[in-house]
């Protein structure tokens, strides 16, 4: 019974479109790469359309772009502060890319790039390396390590707090990655599982029709929820990036 049509995990299958190998590494151009490209093209296209003929009274595309820009700018400024605006480009890029990938993934037959941990872990490591670099550059190695002991910690428990803070810092790329990929993976498989109940219920007949009807309603509800999750996870990723940056940019308020 399990086939490409009903297997809930089939939608996450990677396919090599242009096989390519370099030094033992598989660097093929996959369907994932293709949809990443689509996401980038979509964001770039929207921004290009919105800023092509900038008017004092914005048109449709310009309004969307300005709203989008203002939303991320507000987020960066309210969390990191004014001097955080130099990190606006990276936060905007991350948010726009993840949001575009998540939203494209809602399209039937499209591939959800962010449902793969390799992609989200790469994004998480990117944030981690940026935060680490900025922190080391701003405070120096010792000052950076001192951040792991909040001021006012009793000397007796300082070593434990240091270890816990260090660990919670080191697992950040992991938490960022797992949060995003698990949400997308779970949501999309749930949609598929519910959807596959419909033909099964119809084939069974009798009370199966009721099950099919319930599944259709369930799929509709989960789809709506997934749109929310798609936005929310992009938002959470961007917010956490800002929070992590604010810890190394702003003066210590631990």
């Amino acid at each position, binding site marked *: 019974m399990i086939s490409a049509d009903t297997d809930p995990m089939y939608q996450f299958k990677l396919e090599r479109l242009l096989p390519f190998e370099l030094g033992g590494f598989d660097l093929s151009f996959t369907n994932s790469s293709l949809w990443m490209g689509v996401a980038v093209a979509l964001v770039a296209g929207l921004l290009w359309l919105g800023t092509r003929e900038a008017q004092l009274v914005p048109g449709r595309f310009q309004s969307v772009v300005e709203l989008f820009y203002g939303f991320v700018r507000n987020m960066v400024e309210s969390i990191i502060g004014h001097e955080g605006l130099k990190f606006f480009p990276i936060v905007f890029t991350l948010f726009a890319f993840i949001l575009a990938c998540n939203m494209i993934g809602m399209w039937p037959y499209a591939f959800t790039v962010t449902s793969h941990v390799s992609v989200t872990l790469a994004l998480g490591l990117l944030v981690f390396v940026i935060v680490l670099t900025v922190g080391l550059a701003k405070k120096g190695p010792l000052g950076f390590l001192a951040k792991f002991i909040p001021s006012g910690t009793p000397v007796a428990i300082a070593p434990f707090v240091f270890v*816990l803070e260090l*660990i*919670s810092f080191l*697992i950040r790329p*992991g*938490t960022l990655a*797992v949060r995003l990929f698990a949400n997308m993976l779970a949501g999309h498989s749930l949609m598929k599982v519910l959807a596959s109940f419909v033909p099964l219920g119809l084939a069974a007949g009798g009370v199966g029709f009721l099950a099919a009807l319930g599944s259709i309603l369930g799929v509709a509800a989960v789809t709506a929820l997934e749109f929310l999750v798609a936005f929310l996870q992009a938002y*959470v990723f961007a917010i956490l990036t800002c929070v992590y940056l604010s810890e190394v940019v702003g003066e210590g308020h631990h």
Partner: protein
Amino acid sequence: MPDPETPEDGIDPRNRLEALDRAVKAALDKRAADQAAADAREARAKQAQAGGAAWRMISNLVLATVLVAAAGYGLDRLFGTTPLGLVSGVFIGFAAGVWMAYQASARLQASQDPPAAGLAPVAKEEEGTDGDLR
């Protein structure tokens, strides 16, 4: 200047005060309703925010435990110290998760406590008296 003796809107001058009263009352009611709606929206947003924070804390707790345990398991595989790394990873990861939740809740409280501790109700009262002008 229109002559006060001949009203243009056709309302008897004696009823005019009542009409004005009604209009003012309607406007005040509308303002109160708008304020209540805005308050409800704000409360909902705050609740959603707190819910999001709670959800993040819980997912952090689970993720920290799982990730550090996985790292411990990796060390086990590298150095052949099974099951020391995995076991200590579970405990250290859980401790780190609790610590992160503690930090997050402390931050949340710091950001929400001052207005909730008495400033907001006072401001509300003043607004109320302000709206009582007749």
